[in-house]
């Protein structure tokens, strides 16, 4: 059994390594072969500005992790052979004192804020709608209308109300998380908890006891599955709003500082974008793994 698992992950690793190696070869093709000999279609594509060589991605990663200070030091002795100047994108970021870990921390903070504030809101609304059929009839259509509006479409409007501040980055995330968690809470109470509630009520449970001992546990599998989905949505919204309107965070790192919406013709350095994507994917993966562990812990009583 264990052998099979090892073999399977080896196959995955092999696939990963093969593609990375193939990418390295392709992205470095212009060093081995004179670009003039490429067919015209490839000539436009096989350029380091379009497909950054693996080593420039690594360089961008190191520069963004170590930050502006040690960067000059490493330049002095490391790059004796070729003088690879950092692209404008990395340069701008280093000048602003942006590092990968600091950007990640900021975005993770925003995502967590969205979860902490948005999740209770969504769960309470879902419970309320699932609890009372009459209220559901009135509130559900409004919820469906509200849910249909993409959170990122609201940014500029929120900005008008609250000015240029943290609020218009956080509110879309809160809103996205809350809207996502309404449905699992609703179904948890309406479809799952019905018989439990009847039994608990017959035994005299009500109010807070009913909420914490019956409703929340009964809805928890649905809620935790919804939480993992909400996590993905929160990341998407956070990065999107940072790309549009923020001076920090991963979204800002990817588009190279400033507000992208106001300078539409920016070309980002693909190496930085790839580093950013790797950072985001790793953080998202870790948070999802955390949610998985939480799910296993909290629903252990079911099995």
């Amino acid at each position: 059994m264990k052998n099979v698992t090892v073999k399977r992950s080896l196959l995955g690793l092999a696939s990963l390594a093969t593609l990375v190696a193939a990418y390295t070869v392709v992205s470095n093709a212009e060093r081995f072969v004179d670009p003039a000999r490429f067919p015209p279609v490839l000539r436009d594509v096989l350029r380091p500005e379009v497909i950054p060589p693996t080593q420039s991605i690594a360089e961008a990663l190191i520069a963004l992790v170590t930050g502006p200070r040690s960067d000059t030091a490493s330049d002095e002795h490391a790059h004796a052979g070729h003088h690879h100047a950092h692209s404008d994108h990395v340069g701008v970021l280093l000048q602003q004192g942006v590092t990968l870990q600091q950007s990640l921390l900021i975005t993770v903070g925003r995502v967590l804020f969205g979860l902490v504030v948005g999740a209770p809101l969504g769960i309470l609304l879902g419970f309320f709608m699932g609890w009372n059929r009459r209220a559901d009839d009135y509130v559900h259509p409004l919820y469906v209308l509200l849910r249909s509006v993409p959170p990122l479409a609201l940014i500029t409007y929120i900005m008008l109300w609250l000015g240029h501040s943290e609020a218009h980055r956080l509110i879309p995330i809160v809103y996205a998380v809350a809207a996502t968690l309404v449905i699992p809470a609703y179904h948890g109470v309406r479809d799952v908890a019905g018989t439990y509630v009847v039994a608990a009520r017959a035994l005299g449970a009500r109010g807070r006891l009913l909420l914490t001992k019956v409703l929340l546990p009964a809805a928890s599998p649905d809620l935790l599955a919804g939480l993992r989905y909400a996590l993905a949505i929160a990341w998407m919204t956070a990065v999107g709003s940072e790309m549009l309107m923020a001076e920090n965070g991963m979204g800002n790192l990817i588009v190279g500082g400033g507000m992208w919406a106001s300078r539409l013709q920016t070309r980002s350095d693909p190496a930085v974008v790839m580093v950013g994507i790797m950072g985001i994917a790793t953080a998202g993966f870790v948070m999802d793994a955390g949610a998985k562990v939480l799910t296993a812990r909290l629903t252990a009583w079911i099995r």
Partner: protein
Amino acid sequence: MMQMSPAPWTRLRRALVAIGTLAVLYGIAAQIGQKWLPHRIWMDVHYIDDVELLPTYRSLGEELVFLLQSGILPSSIAVSTGRILIGFFLGACAGILLGMATGRSRRIEDLAEPWVTFLRFTPALALLPLYVVWFGYGEPSKVLLIATNVAVVTLLGAHQGVRGVPRVYLDAAASLGADDRLAFKKIVLPAALPQIFASLRIALGLAWVTIVVAELIDAKMPSLGYLLALAGAYPRVPTMVIGIATVGLLVLAFDLLALFLHARATRWMKRTA
């Protein structure tokens, strides 16, 4: 909780009452707001004048008439919807095929898994700057961004759908002499459909989230994302509100369409809710 489910028309009436109440409340708030809300807003570096934070129905109506008569809104809707549909189609085809392949074959799953995991945790929007460099500012980067987004979601849906088919069904079919193709057509595909449709529905919602941002990169007028950005830059609140409402209604319409197709495709199944 134990009330009987009321007749459909009661529910419809209640829905209309709720929406009507909200509409009236908004109208009142807008009238009050016209008097009390600031018309001059300090925006970081400069003042913006003549801002209606809550536009009245009157100015909303005038703006809507203008946007309709000038053809801006219809053409924006057409362009954005077209992008969504093309990207959605491409992404759904690729995602469902790949998902079925990984669902059917362990080997393919093992090969694809690291990449799927990686893409799953990559918000599609983060790929946007990369796609701009690769595919240019024009149509392909937007359509492909949506396609990528849709493909990842539907891949997972199709994979889980195919994996979720009970082994017993397949064994039973095999013992009755069904070959792989027949078993796929008659058992795997129908059994995977609910999951696939659920993922398609999620993907459709995500596609609309993506387009709003993706359409900011090529500043050409007929598109909903750009309409929103432009309304935000001036800022013209009535345009903004109409833009937001339009996107919302389109998302809703597409969602209902997806639900309807889902119900049609899985009609043979017994349903409790």
